[in-house]
């Protein structure tokens, strides 16, 4: 019990330090800009009064550590600052858009995990046949494709040519298909590989052979056992790929003209709307940190042996 508490405490303090580090990077991003960030944000037409006003609003006339402390204190209280471009609280802008991003990433995660499991299982069952080779080739292929390009091709093929799905914007369920597919096709490949090898391992286990010999419906038994063994590699892979799925969805939003957090980030970068950029960096990195924590908790639920490392 003692070791376990110590482990949890270490884990927890590690996460706090990481979160502070991440917030420092998001904060310092503003100061990477060549020249005076306030002048860059306001553009050429800004008056001297506006510049002074914004500078004091952002605390930029005070020492760096004071700026950070006041920024992070506000963030903790739920105040992410005010957008320069929209002149509205950043939190409101994000609240309006986060649903779209969650919908896209969520759908893509489900599609890629299930797609990967399916292709991995089929490849393993049909080992060394042309179906298996096709499965391996498609994983290699999709790992090598930039998601924004597959998005454009899907748009062209199924949107412009065949007209099966809407081209841009969000009009109901059907407009979700292409963007989610563009994201998931690249990601499923990462889940197919570990699933295939776990499945192959299970197929060769003695207890599976025994179960088969007893006349149990074999495909179901194999799948159940393989799934139990594959759970940890899949959770690991999901935690590893999550940053890529989020990153991909940000670009895909732009390709499909969705107004989620990704489009907001890209537009804000171009508009030099630094408070928005900082807030989105913070939210996304916190999401990744919590996903990793969740994966750690899941491990200990799946396999109690790895609870204390």
């Amino acid at each position, binding site marked *: 019990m003692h070791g376990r508490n110590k482990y949890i405490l270490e884990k927890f303090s590690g996460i706090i330090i990481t979160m502070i580090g991440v917030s420092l990077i998001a904060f310092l991003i503003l100061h990477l*800009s060549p020249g005076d960030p306030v002048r860059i944000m306001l553009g050429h037409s800004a008056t001297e009064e506006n510049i002074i006003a914004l500078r004091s609003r952002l605390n930029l006339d005070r020492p760096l550590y004071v700026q950070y402390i006041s920024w992070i204190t506000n963030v903790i209280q739920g105040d992410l600052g005010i957008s320069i471009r929209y002149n509205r609280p950043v939190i409101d802008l994000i609240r309006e858009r986060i649903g779209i991003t969650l919908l896209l990433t969520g759908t893509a995660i489900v599609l890629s995990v299930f797609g990967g499991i399916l292709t991995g299982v089929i490849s393993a069952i049909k080992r060394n046949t042309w179906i298996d080779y096709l499965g391996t080739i498609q994983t290699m292929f999709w*790992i090598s494709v*930039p998601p924004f390009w597959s998005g454009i091709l899907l*748009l*062209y093929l199924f949107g412009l040519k065949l007209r099966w799905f809407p081209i841009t914007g969000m009009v109901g369920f059907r407009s979700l298909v292409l963007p989610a597919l563009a994201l998931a096709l690249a990601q499923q490949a990462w889940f197919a590989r570990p699933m295939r090898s776990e499945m192959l391992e299970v197929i060769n286990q003695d207890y599976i052979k025994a179960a088969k010999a007893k006349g149990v419906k074999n495909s179901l038994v194999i799948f159940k056992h393989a799934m139990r063994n594959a759970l940890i590699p899949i959770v690991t892979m999901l935690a590893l790929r999550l940053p890529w799925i989020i990153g991909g969805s940000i670009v895909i939003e732009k390709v499909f003209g969705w107004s989620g957090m990704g489009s907001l980030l*890209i537009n804000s*970068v171009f508009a030099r709307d630094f408070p928005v950029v900082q807030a989105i960096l913070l939210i*996304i990195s916190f999401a990744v940190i919590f996903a990793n924590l969740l994966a750690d908790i899941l491990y200990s639920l799946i396999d109690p042996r790895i609870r204390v490392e």
Partner: protein
Amino acid sequence: MATDINEIRNEIKSLKQKKNSQLSLVWLRFKKNKLSVIGLIIIAIIFFTALLAPVLTPYNPYQIDMTNRLSSPSSSNLLGTDALGRDVLTRLIYGSRIAMLIGVLIVLFEGFIGIIFGIISGFFGGLPDKIIMRLVDILRSFPVIVLAIAIAGILGQGLFNVVIAIGIVGWTTYTRMVRSKILVIKESEYVENARAIGESTFSIVLRYVIPNAIPTAIVMVCIMMPTALIASATLSYLGLGVQPPLADWGSIISSGRNYMLEAPWISTSAGFFIMFTVLGFNFIGDGLRDALDPTIKRN
């Protein structure tokens, strides 16, 4: 005396042969994997395309010809022309130069930082290790492309800004790999023996640790190249990469996007160039990993 010298000569000879045979063993193992040989051929083709670009095409990638806009693929323009009448294949051929240059610069940048930090972290342990690994954890909380978008956007367009924007997260992967490799090397007998006979830490790192970490580093470069290429193409696609008139694959896809109905070949062919290059490096990476350093696993 004479026999002694001969003996030593023979020993040196056999040692040299042993080294050669080790290299040929790696090559043999690499060759056995058909996909990695295909990858090598793909990358060789792309490399020579980049090198011989002016010889391979009669056109200039910047030559605007408004009378010949968006023409379909033909015998004179194998992949058609773009919205400014420029030959698409020529622009793609010249684009391989930029892709290769950016890819190599990113890998060098992140490899250099990552390997040095990995050696420090793995070999010295203690506080430096704790600090470096915490920094790695912090940076890995950002998706590569998200931090790259923010940094490239704030630093402004340009080749070196792209390298920094992508490399700033990328080096952490090298550090992790090299660190875990060094931890194994550190416990090995030859390092223990070197310590026992009183060799200095500096000389141990230089003579044993670095040479033994090199295979890992080479494999890492091939594994990281695809990420570098896709991330830089994505930045160019978003308009945050190299400057637009430059023939870059990502920006060719982006400009072709507006003409998908009239001229789908522009974006499509540019994407295939990216895909085959990335595929080539993936194949080589897989083959090299198995041949040089079977202890590394992907991710």
